[in-house]
């Protein structure tokens, strides 16, 4: 006997009703074979709901089925009437073939509120016919694709679908994933589409929030709070720095306000404006180094900065930026005297992500920035600063390799916040910047290699920071640690410090 194609009612909720009601009665009363169209109905049954709750008319029409030829269309119509009369339930039908060739019709009824998936979304009653990825599907790992396809052939599991959306967003940083459902090609089935919405060509600057501890330097904290959704065309953010000594030679506290627009008429053009005000304190070692070297511009008690920038994107991967950086620094020793450091800023950056057929995900990025301050911008300090950086990351299964390289050069008299430093929680880990060059340097070379297996990491850093007309000393460090979702606990060992000391670091970047 040919098996009847799944009907709309059957497909959409039979699985649900079997799960809720069990329905052993069906097996007891009839063979598990669908009755053919036209078979004489010898019994009609309703399960999971009292037929006396239905209207007399509907009860009568259901009773009238007995003795009549089976019409699937007629039965589906009655199921729809049950749902229409009792909107708190869903109904399906089964028509099973008896050994004598007659049909046994069962109306399977269940309350929506008894099923959390249905409560969440009524479409969870339907079978998933297909799952598709819209957008940058080539970048999705095979494992995740396979997991997405596991939704097919089952009722829509909204919780699992949400988890898969999150996994997609994790694999495709900066992009939004929207889940859409539409009717399938067969009645009672649905198509699920995970739509990946591409990131605009000009990204927002990465968040700078962190709370880190370095044994020699203590705590540093920065909190960047975006006030608008990161997926919009613009973003306004407020940043607070609390005694941050992790980035620069100075220890700064204060605030920054930043506005970014990454689509100015066209996605190729963006702009940003950042205003910041920081109060500065200084390590004794820095003040001593400044006293010993009058060629370095002096320390300041606070710093006011305004940076308007414009960015142009050639394509989604390559961008150039230009603008000015206007700074005013109130002297620490001769307050209220102040100095200005007003620089033209220009830079180029490129990044790319790709995935191999073996599932390895790679991300490479490189940037170069030039800052040149001169009399043209009424700057007291005249200097030129070049900084080139490159970073590469490979993720494959539980393995991650990260490599980075930086090269910097300063000519002239750059203020202290522009000078290079190494020896913190992210660069030349294990060393203390105030031991290496407490006033920072005009030259920089640095490289890092890190390997992570799951959350365990080992690294090797090497670099040097020095001044013009002084000798360069390459310093090495290694260490290990645990990394998880921006959090880290690391122990770094300077390799050529002449001692066996270790430096403990921990914190979180988010």
């Amino acid at each position, binding site marked *: 006997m040919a098996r009847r194609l799944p009907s709309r009612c059957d497909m959409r909720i039979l699985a649900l009703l079997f799960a809720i009601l069990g329905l052993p009665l069906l097996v007891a009363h009839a063979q598990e074979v669908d009755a053919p169209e036209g078979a004489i109905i010898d019994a009609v049954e309703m399960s999971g709901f009292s037929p006396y709750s239905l209207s007399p008319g509907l009860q009568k029409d259901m009773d009238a089925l007995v003795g009549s030829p089976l019409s699937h269309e007629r039965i589906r119509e009655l199921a729809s009437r049950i*749902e229409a009369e009792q909107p708190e339930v869903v109904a399906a039908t089964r028509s099973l073939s008896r050994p004598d060739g007659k049909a046994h019709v069962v109306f399977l009824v269940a309350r929506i*509120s008894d099923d959390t998936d249905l409560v*969440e979304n009524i479409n969870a009653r339907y079978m998933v016919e297909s799952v598709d990825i819209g957008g940058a599907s080539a970048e999705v790992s095979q494992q995740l694709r396979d997991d997405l396809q596991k939704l097919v052939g089952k009722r829509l599991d909204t919780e699992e679908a949400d988890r898969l959306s999150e996994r997609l967003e994790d694999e495709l940083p900066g992009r939004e994933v929207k889940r859409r*459902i539409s009717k399938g090609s067969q009645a009672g089935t649905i198509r699920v589409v995970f739509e990946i919405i591409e990131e605009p060509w000009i990204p927002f600057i990465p968040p700078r929030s962190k709370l880190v501890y370095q044994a020699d330097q203590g705590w540093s904290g920065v909190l960047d709070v975006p*006030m*608008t959704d990161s997926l919009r065309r613009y973003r306004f953010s407020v940043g607070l720095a609390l005694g941050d000594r992790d980035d620069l030679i100075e220890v700064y506290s204060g605030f920054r306000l930043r506005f970014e627009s990454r689509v100015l008429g066209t996605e190729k053009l963006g702009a940003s404006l950042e205003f910041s005000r920081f109060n500065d304190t200084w390590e004794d070692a820095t003040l001593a180094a400044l006293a010993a070297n009058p060629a370095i511009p002096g320390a300041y008690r606070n710093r006011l900065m305004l940076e308007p920038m414009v960015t142009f994107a050639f394509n989604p991967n390559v961008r150039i930026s230009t603008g000015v950086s206007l700074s005013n620094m109130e002297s620490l020793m001769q307050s209220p005297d102040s100095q200005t450091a007003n620089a033209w800023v220009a830079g180029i950056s490129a990044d790319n992500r790709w995935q191999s057929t073996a599932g390895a995900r790679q991300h490479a990025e490189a940037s170069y920035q030039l800052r040149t301050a001169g009399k043209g911008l009424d700057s007291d300090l005249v200097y030129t600063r070049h900084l080139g950086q490159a970073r590469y990351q490979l993720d494959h299964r539980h393995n991650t390799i990260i490599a980075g390289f930086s090269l910097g050069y300063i000519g002239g008299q750059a203020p202290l916040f522009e000078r290079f430093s190494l020896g913190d929680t992210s660069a030349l880990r294990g060393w203390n910047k105030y031991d290496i060059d407490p006033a920072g340097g005009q030259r920089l070379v640095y490289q890092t290699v890190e390997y992570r297996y799951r959350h365990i990491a080992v690294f090797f850093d090497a670099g040097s920071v020095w001044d013009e007309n002084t000798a360069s000393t390459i310093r090495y460090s290694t260490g290990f640690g645990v990394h998880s979702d921006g959090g880290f606990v690391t122990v770094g060992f300077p390799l050529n410090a002449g001692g066996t000391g270790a430096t403990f670091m921990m914190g979180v970047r*988010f």
Partner: protein
Amino acid sequence: MSAAIGRLSRRQTGVLALALIVTAALRLSAQTLTVKTVADALHVQARGFSFIDGPVLNRLKEGRSVRIDFEMTVLAKPEGPVVRQASQSFTLSFDLWEERFAVSRGGSPPRSISHLRARDAESWCLDNLTMPVTSLGQYGREPFWIRLAYRIQEPAPAGNEAPGERFTLRGLIDRLSRRREEDDLARSIDAGPFRLPN
């Protein structure tokens, strides 16, 4: 000729002003609150207070569900003070095959209903937003005002609520700080004074 144009302009201006007044009046009258008591429960009815439209409707028709948080506030006088507040969440979805709306009420006991048209789904939500009359105390005998407000929320991804969830500080900051698109999908109306029948 110019006088005729002037008269015509004044007439047009008058018609326009009248149309504006009528439109405004219709809009006001189209969104009116009424209250009723059933047993010990205070119900609110809001004619013209529709929320299944625009982006909410688009989202539902894409097969996504929408959570709506309702709040009914009883005020002693316009703009406060607050006498009593009741809130209730509902999850809406749109049955793609039946082309009808389904609504589920959170809390205990949970209730769900399907096969509703948009306006019926809206009414069902309001019918399930109640406040015990006895909780109003003396204000049950005095005039009071009602504020009805709703806010559209996207249901939190299930993964965020699962045991052993992946908690991220970045995510926390995003949740605490960002103004989501849905923030724009919030409305409230005030009305009064009302007095409960003795």
